[in-house]
C-alpha cells in the first residue's frame, strides 16, 4: 500500500486507516467539529430568502390596509356610502361625493362577461388539444398560448384603442369606448390562463376514464360531455376563477378602451369604468394625503381584498374535489 503524507490532518479530517493518529472521538463527534460553519451559513441564507416572502406579503397587507382605511378613519367617509352610492364627485368643493358603486359594478361586469366569453373558448381549446387532436394539437396551440401570454397589456390596450373601439363605433354603435370593448380585450387576455389550466386538467384525467366510456359505446362528444368534463370540473372551475381574478385586476388595457365614465352603464355599448381604471387615471394627479387620493387607496384595498377572496374561492373549489 502506498500512503503518501497528504496534508489532511486539518480540521480533524483524516484519510485512511494508516493515518489514524487522531482518535475516533475527535474525528467523528460534532464537538470535534469540521467545516459545518458553511452549512449553517448556507441554511441561514436561504431561510432568509423564504422569510422575505412572508415579510413582503405581510407588509403589503398591512401598508395597503392602513392606507386604504384612511378615507374612513381620517376623512370620515362612511363605508356604506362608499360602497353603495353611485355618486362619484370627489372634487366638488361644496358637496363631495364618494360613491364607488359604478366602479365596483364595472369591475364585476367586465370580469363576469369576459369569463363568459373565455371559459367556453379556453375549455374548448383544451378539449381540442387533448381529445380531438392529441398528437399535434398541443404543438400548435401551446406556442400560440405562450405567445398570447407574452403580449404586454399595454399593447392589448393600444390595439383595442386603434382597432376595436373604432370598429364598435362604426359597425355596432355607441362611442366605441364601451363595456363591450373592455370585455373583448379582457377575454383575449385571460384566454391563455384558462386554456393552460384547463389543458392540465384534461390531460391529467386517467386514461381508463375514456376507455371505459368508449367501451360502453359512447361517442367522443358523449364521453367528453358526460364523463370527462364532470371529472375535471373542479380544476376547470379553478381555471375560470383564476381567469376572473386576472380580469378583475387588469388595469391599463381596460382603461384604454372602456371610456372611464362615472355612471353605471345601462348597456354593453355604454362606456364604463372599473376600480383599476379609476386608480390608474387619477393617482397621478391627486395630491398624496388629500381626500380624493385616500379614496383611491381605499379602492386599491378593495382590489387587495378581492384577490384574497379569489384565492379562498379557489382553495374551496379544489378542496371539494378531494371528496
Amino acid at each position, binding site marked *: 500500500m502506498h500512503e503518501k503524507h497528504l496534508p489532511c490532518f486539518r480540521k480533524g479530517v483524516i484519510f485512511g486507516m494508516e493515518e489514524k493518529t487522531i482518535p475516533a472521538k475527535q474525528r467523528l463527534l460534532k464537538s470535534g467539529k469540521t467545516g459545518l460553519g458553511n452549512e449553517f451559513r*448556507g441554511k441561514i441564507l436561504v431561510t432568509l430568502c423564504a422569510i422575505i416572502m412572508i415579510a413582503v406579503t405581510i407588509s403589503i397587507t398591512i401598508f395597503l390596509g392602513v392606507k386604504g382605511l384612511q378615507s374612513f378613519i381620517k376623512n370620515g367617509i362612511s363605508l356604506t356610502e362608499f360602497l353603495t352610492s353611485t355618486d362619484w364627485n370627489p372634487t366638488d368643493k361644496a358637496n363631495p361625493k364618494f360613491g364607488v358603486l359604478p366602479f365596483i359594478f364595472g369591475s364585476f361586469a367586465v370580469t363576469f362577461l369576459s369569463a363568459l366569453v373565455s371559459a367556453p373558448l379556453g375549455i374548448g381549446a383544451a378539449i381540442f388539444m387533448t381529445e380531438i387532436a392529441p398528437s399535434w394539437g398541443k404543438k400548435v396551440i401551446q406556442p400560440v398560448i405562450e405567445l398570447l401570454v407574452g403580449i404586454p397589456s399595454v399593447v392589448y390596450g393600444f390595439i383595442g384603442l386603434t382597432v376595436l373601439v373604432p370598429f364598435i363605433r362604426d359597425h355596432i354603435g355607441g362611442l366605441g369606448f364601451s363595456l363591450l370593448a373592455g370585455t373583448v380585450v379582457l377575454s383575449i387576455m385571460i*384566454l391563455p390562463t384558462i386554456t393552460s389550466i384547463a389543458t392540465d386538467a384534461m390531460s391529467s384525467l386517467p386514461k381508463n376514464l375514456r376507455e371505459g366510456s368508449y367501451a360502453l359505446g359512447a361517442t367522443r362528444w358523449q364521453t367528453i360531455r358526460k364523463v370527462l368534463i364532470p371529472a375535471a370540473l373542479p380544476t376547470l372551475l379553478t381555471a375560470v376563477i383564476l381567469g376572473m381574478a386576472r380580469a378583475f385586476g387588469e388595469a391599463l388595457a381596460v382603461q384604454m378602451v372602456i371610456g372611464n365614465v362615472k355612471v353605471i352603464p345601462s348597456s354593453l355599448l355604454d362606456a364604463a369604468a372599473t376600480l383599476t381604471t379609476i386608480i390608474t387615471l387619477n393617482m397621478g394627479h391627486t395630491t398624496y394625503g388629500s381626500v380624493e387620493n385616500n379614496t383611491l387607496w381605499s379602492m386599491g384595498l378593495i382590489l387587495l381584498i378581492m384577490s384574497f377572496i379569489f384565492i379562498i374561492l379557489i382553495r374551496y373549489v379544489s378542496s371539494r374535489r378531494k371528496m
Partner: protein
Amino acid sequence: MNSKTADRIATVVLVVIAAVIVSILVGLFAYILFNGLRYVSFDFLTSPSSNVRAGGGVRDQLFNSLYILVITMIISLPLGIGGGIFMAEYARPGKVTDIIRSCIEVLSSLPSIVIGMFGLLMFVNLTGWGYTILGGALALTVFNLPVLVRVSEDAIRTVPRELKEGSLALGITHWHTIKTVILPSAFPSILTGAILASGRVFGEAAALLFTAGLSTPRLNYLDWNPFSDRSPLNIFRPAETLAVHIWSVNTQGLIPDIEQVSNGASAVLILAVLIFNLLARWIGTLIHKKITATK
C-alpha cells in the same frame, strides 16, 4: 338529434374554437409587426422622445426598459433561487412551509396595479426617493419573485435523488452538495424560467406607472458614473419605460404622431417578447439534447 350528429357538430365547434384562437394570435402579431415595423428604424430607436412634437423616438424608454430589467433580475434572481432552494431542500412539512406557500400564492395573484400602489407607498413616498429606477425594480421584484421561486423549486426537485445521495455519501455537506451538484444540474431549467420571466418583466407597465414614473430626465449617455445626475446608470432617477410610454402617449394625446410612435414601440416590445420566448425554447432544447445525448 342523435348522438352521432351531436358528436360531429361538437367536433366542428371545437375545431373552430381552436382555429379562432390561432387566428387571433396571428392577427394580433401580424397587425403589430406589419404596422409597427416600418416605424422601427435606427433613428427611432436612438432618438429621444418628444412630448409634444412629432418625430420622437424611444431611445431613453428602450434603455430604461432594459436597465430596469437588469436591475430587477439582479435583485430578484438570488432571492428567488434562495427561496427555491429553501422550499426544495430545507423546508419540512409543517405550518411554516404552508405559510410560505400561501404567501407565494398571494404574491403571485396580486394585480400588478396593486403592486404598483404598494411600490408607490413604500419606495416612493415612505423612503422619500420619489420616482426612481430602484423603486420600479423593487416593485417588479415583488412581481417576479413568486415566479422565480416556483421555477427554482421545480428545477431543483427535478434533479434526481441519486445525484444528491451520491454526493452526501462521500462525506460532503448538504449545502456544498446544493452548491456544487444540485444547482448546476438545475441551472438550465432555472435559466429558461428566468428568461421567460424576463419577457414578462420587460412588458410590464402598471407596476411602474407610480414607481419609476412617467418621465425621464435628460440623459448624457457618455456619463457612466452611476452617481451622477445625468447618467443613465443612476438608479435614483425617474425612468419611463417603453410599455409605460405607449400608455402615456395614448392617454395624454399630445403628440400628433401617436399612432406611429405607439405602433413602433409596440412592435419593439413584441419583438423583444418573441426573442425572449424563442431564446428560452432554444436553450430548453439545447439542454434536452445535451442530457439525452451523453447517456
